[in-house]
């Protein structure tokens, strides 16, 4: 469904993504794991087209020179040069790192702004669905976005992204800085979104363990390169991966 081939991204001379091939089939949840600065967010920005905007702004202000090579394909159509808004229209919606909710608008208004691409009936239906998925949000719907807790903000960010009627949802570090309880809630919700709305999901995270149970396929990034990929079972069987990303220490015998 969504696919990147030979993706290379340079910030000046620094290689941020090195020849990445990544693929997400319809109805899959694909995990991308890696430490800080492994290139997870760069990958998400490149897939969603935000990199185009970052690049343009940097060029205009005489900042960093960003080079993007390779190809991004969506439903067998090349979308490498499309603007983020055009990609969103096609169904690729990014729920960004650090949530970036509209902090001066209420919860309900955040969701309404998210419904920019939705028809009236879609917006109504999705709003009900979001409140069913995250009942906590319904109670907070008049609350100003900036006054929400981290977990509430993340629920709102996912809900807002759903309002844009995605077919592929890109979740960039949705669990960042949240309690284990909230992490579990969000992971369950992520699986529900896939199962009930039939949305494909690419999810990135530093620590793979909480996310691993729901992914179908996963990639491990290190310094911009995909060092390992495979199904859940294949990765779980690898001892090094277990030690590095699942926090399971084993003695070598």
């Amino acid at each position, binding site marked *: 469904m969504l696919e990147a081939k030979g993706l290379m991204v340079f910030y000046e001379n620094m290689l941020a993504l090195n020849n990445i091939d990544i693929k997400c089939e319809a109805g899959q949840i694909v995990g991308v794991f890696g430490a800080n600065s492994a290139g997870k967010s760069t990958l998400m920005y490149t897939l969603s087209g935000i990199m185009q905007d970052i690049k343009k702004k940097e060029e205009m202000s005489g900042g960093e020179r960003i080079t993007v090579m390779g190809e991004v394909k969506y439903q067998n159509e090349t979308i490498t040069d499309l603007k983020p808004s055009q990609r969103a229209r096609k169904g690729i919606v990014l729920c*960004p790192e650090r949530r970036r909710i509209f*902090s001066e608008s209420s919860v309900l208004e955040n969701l309404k*702004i998210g419904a920019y691409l939705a028809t009236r009936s879609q917006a109504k239906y999705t709003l009900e669905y979001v409140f069913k998925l995250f009942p906590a949000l319904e109670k907070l719907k008049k609350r100003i976005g900036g006054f929400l807790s981290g977990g509430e903000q993340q629920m709102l960010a996912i809900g807002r992204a759903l309002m844009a009627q995605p077919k592929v949802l890109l979740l960039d570090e949705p669990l960042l800085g949240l309690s284990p309880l909230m992490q579990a809630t969000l992971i369950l919700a992520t699986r529900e979104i896939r199962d009930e709305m039939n949305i494909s999901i690419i999810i990135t995270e530093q620590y793979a363990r909480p996310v691993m149970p729901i992914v179908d396929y996963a990639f491990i990034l290190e310094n911009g390169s995909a060092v390992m990929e495979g199904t859940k079972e294949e990765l779980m069987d690898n001892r090094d991966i277990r030690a590095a990303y699942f926090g399971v220490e084993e003695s070598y015998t």
Partner: protein
Amino acid sequence: MEILIYGTINSVALALYALGFAMVYGVSRLPNFAHGALYVLSGFITWSFLNSLGLNYLISILLAMLATGLIGALIYQFVLIRVRGMEISEIMASYAIGLAILEGLRWGGFKGMTYTLPAFISGSTEIAGIPVDYQRLLVVGIGIAVVGLLWLFTRYTRIGLALRGMAQDERAAMMLGIDSDLMAVTAMGFGSMLAALAAVLLLPLGNIVVESGYNILILAIAVCIVGGLGSWMGAVLAAFLIGFAQILTVVYLGSHFQMVVALAAIILTLIIKPSGLFGRQKELEERV
């Protein structure tokens, strides 16, 4: 009482000057230094429709507003879009356009005190013993209506909500499918139309003179800085603050101090609270 009535009128007038500027800045972070020029231009467009083409007054006004909105959108689409994000260039480019429009008008013969627009309703009434003409009452009425409509527009329509999203976090808005350039053009069009609306309401109170373009720009900037750049409601509040301060100085000091008040307000705000009353610099701390 006199101070209260004329202070309110003056404040609403200031708010009308500033709303267009605040809207453009709020949505696209673009200080539109051609705002004053668009104000004067729309005055002359209305005058031309009315006197050269002999159209009905109301139709001339509506056409002039549309024309000004279109001119604003075109200015953005063909010039400002290329310097977007470079603050100094944005100011220089928009100010140059403003200069070109104003001096072009002067060069084209629109100068002197001969150009006036008629009042919608002539005559005057008395409120608590103070004579007030109907045009000024109309300014207050329409001004309040515009603020109300703008509030509804940005909260209950799809485009309005998208503009609000853009104003708060441009990139987050893009992720949701909102086209930032399209929204910036829209905001510029609306902002210019607001300038035109202010012009047709307020110009009948005096002459259409090219020089007022510069004053309007300074007043609009003063209001927006005091209110906090990018905050529309802050601008309305600041308009009342400066509006009453101006009337008070007129009553107690003399009428040529009016402009000083606006400039002093800019300087004081920048020294004491650079983000203004409702500035966005004091954004809530990010929660991690």
